[in-house]
């Protein structure tokens, strides 16, 4: 069986430390007395950034009047920042922009928690926290809530500027991962959502009298997404305006243990380390910061704890918060290794249209390129000259807009590698593509591999176009073969490690230090066995991969020769291997 289940027979007793530091260098300032902040923060040895989520309800009961150090000493954020600075730590504030799974009422001030959030079937939404408490969520679509939120961010911004607080503030889009990618907790189908949506549709009809009174499911889907984005932008704009000097942008935070499946397991007091470890890696591929805040402390002591420590605390957090200068400032830090950046269907496109999952891409990448990809989901692609042009970008033609089209061409012309599924691509863009190839005098190679592939090269850049709909009837094996043949032509310089069932592997990368100049880069392979079975496997070392170091061995037997590595992992076993890589 894939999952390891653990039964908790007694109600866990939460230590004060665990409640205040729930994981990944988060600090819950409201869970302890302000007089203890100094000793608590001093105890965070080796931590340079402290993540502090802001608890809206702790500063206001009504959403109207606010307490920032006027009454409760624990609302004194200036004092908190000052103490952290004394110990050489930087505070990064996270302001929730959607219901918070770890807070009562999702973090809303009690007077604003009026309309319970419900899912598309009508079930009230709730989460189980690390203490086994149930937190019911309340709608962020309630106009009273988003009006009060504007006041909250204004008050917070004024407080920050009056007290000269220069800390970074990120908007926290809370969510969890599911089969459909990142699911924000803002999604709602409550009565206030329905009322707001009706008003939104009416406004659309007023704008466009040709719109039918009864919508097709596709239209409803598209407008539903548009309405959600409008409300989401109200929260983002409030933050940007209120906190302009401190505002850094929106950050997705994936709460492990927060899916529906987890909820019903956790109601039964069962946790699945296998599911959590998978979700953690999925979060990383979605560029969402994984958080273990909802999980009981006992689960974070074994392999799951090591995954959080190695992949999140010591790698991904820096990658997220120092993104602009990640390589330069911390030359020896590992960041996730990514060969691919995959853009899927926009959420306003009908769910009946085939996405990458239907074309077998995810399954293929997951098996052969274990998490070495960024799943950009519905996000919009924008070319950036600092982007790593070694990556391969995947796009759907049906998503094409003028802006995306130009960004794709810029990527290709800057040496980027683009794979475009032309199914659904409008004729206008097909013509523009043809014109672009002609104008630039590019030779187009045409190859028939299940579907017709068109390939253009320009310097380092490659542009490969195929018809995705031709793959829809293929069996999984044929799909794998297709992707294998296609991606092999890109020469990714990857060492394929296919772990046995239940074992997770992740790759990270860093630049070389002065003693490693024989290599182009150093890659770290992290191997974890969150299953409850012993697992054994081997893999071949390609000639351009040299094993440099074996580290963090836990419950593992490891052997290696010139060309092969043999690993035997006991349950909860793990290890990391560093490889010097050259061409």
């Amino acid at each position, binding site marked *: *069986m894939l*999952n390891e*289940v653990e039964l908790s027979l007694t*109600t866990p007793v939460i230590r004060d430390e665990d409640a205040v530091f729930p994981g990944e260098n988060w600090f819950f300032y409201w869970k302890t007395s302000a007089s203890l902040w100094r000793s608590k923060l001093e105890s965070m040895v080796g931590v340079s950034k402290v993540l502090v989520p802001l608890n809206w309800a702790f500063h206001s009961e009504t959403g109207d009047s606010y307490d920032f150090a006027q009454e409760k000493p624990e609302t004194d954020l200036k004092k908190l920042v000052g103490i952290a600075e004394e110990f050489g730590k930087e505070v990064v504030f996270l302001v929730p922009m959607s219901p918070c799974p770890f807070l009562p009422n999702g973090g809303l001030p009690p007077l604003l928690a009026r309309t*319970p959030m*419900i899912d598309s*079937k*009508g*079930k*009230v939404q*709730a989460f*189980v926290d690390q203490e*086994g*408490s*149930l937190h*019911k969520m309340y709608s962020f679509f309630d106009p009273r809530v988003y009006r009060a939120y504007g006041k909250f961010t204004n008050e917070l911004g004024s407080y920050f500027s009056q007290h000269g607080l220069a800390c970074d503030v990120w908007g926290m889009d809370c969510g969890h991962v599911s089969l459909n990618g990142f699911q924000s907790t803002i999604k709602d189908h409550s009565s206030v959502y329905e009322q707001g949506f009706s008003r939104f549709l009416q406004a659309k009809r007023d704008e466009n009298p040709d719109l039918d009174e009864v919508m097709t499911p596709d239209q409803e889907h598209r407008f539903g997404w548009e309405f959600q984005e409008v409300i989401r932008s109200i929260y983002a704009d409030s933050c940007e305006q209120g906190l302009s000097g401190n505002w850094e942008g929106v950050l997705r935070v994936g709460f492990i243990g927060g899916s*529906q*499946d*987890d909820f*019903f*397991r*956790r*109601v*039964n*007091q*069962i946790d*699945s380390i296998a*599911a959590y470890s998978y979700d953690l890696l999925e979060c990383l591929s979605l560029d969402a910061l994984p958080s273990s805040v909802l999980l009981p402390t006992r689960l974070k002591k074994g392999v799951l704890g090591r995954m959080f420590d190695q992949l999140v605390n010591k790698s991904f957090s820096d990658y997220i918060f120092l993104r602009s200068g990640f390589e330069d400032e911390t030359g020896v830090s590992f960041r996730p290794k990514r060969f691919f950046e995959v853009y899927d269907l926009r959420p306003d496109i009908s769910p009946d249209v085939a996405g990458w999952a239907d074309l077998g891409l995810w399954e293929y990448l997951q098996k052969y390129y274990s998490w070495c990809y960024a799943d950009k989901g519905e996000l919009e692609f924008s070319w950036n000259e600092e982007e790593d042009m070694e990556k391969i970008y995947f796009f759907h033609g049906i998503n094409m807009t003028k802006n995306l089209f130009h960004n794709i061409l810029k990527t290709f012309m800057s040496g980027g590698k683009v794979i475009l599924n032309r199914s659904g691509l409008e004729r206008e863009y097909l013509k523009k593509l043809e014109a672009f190839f002609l104008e630039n005098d590019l030779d187009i190679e045409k190859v028939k591999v299940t579907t017709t592939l068109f390939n253009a090269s320009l310097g380092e850049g490659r542009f490969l176009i195929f018809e995705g709909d031709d793959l829809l009837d293929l069996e999984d094996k044929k799909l794998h073969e297709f992707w294998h043949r296609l991606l092999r032509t890109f020469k990714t310089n990857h060492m394929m490690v296919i772990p046995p069932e239940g074992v997770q592997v992740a790759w990270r990368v860093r630049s070389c230090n002065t003693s490693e100049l024989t290599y182009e880069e150093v890659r770290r392979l992290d191997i974890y066995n969150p299953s409850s079975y012993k697992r054994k496997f081997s893999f071949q070392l390609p000639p351009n991969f040299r094993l440099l170091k074996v580290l963090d061995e836990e419950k593992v037997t490891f052997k290696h020769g010139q060309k092969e590595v043999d690993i035997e992992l006991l349950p909860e076993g793990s290890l990391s291997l560093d490889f010097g890589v050259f061409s």
Partner: protein
Amino acid sequence: MSERLSPLTVIYGPHKVASQIKGQEVMSLFNERGLVDEVQMEEVYLEQIGHAPEVLAEGMIGPFDDLEAIQKFSFSLCQNFGNSGVSLVSLERYNEILSDCYKAEDLKAKLEAEGNFLKNPDASKGNFFNKIFN
């Protein structure tokens, strides 16, 4: 000796098509291992109803003509898995129970106590699915 599994819990409610109620559906079907896998549910559904479900996802299946059909379906699953019984809770009641509970363990106890409970007298004998999946 066969392991005696705790009850299945079924949350059911109206099956809506374009805002019109067209029968009932299972909105969440779970046991201590989480939501029940769609493949296992689909097999039992096909056998009982005779055609493919219109709604099918983890822990979610439908439509059914009425509550009786859901009871029959859930009980068949319960027999296949060897659960001690099945507790059926309406969507409305589930939301009320959830609103009144503050601890996960209380929610579990109340869903079992306050649902329409069908006992599986053969629970301790073991069964086909239980031997394969557990």
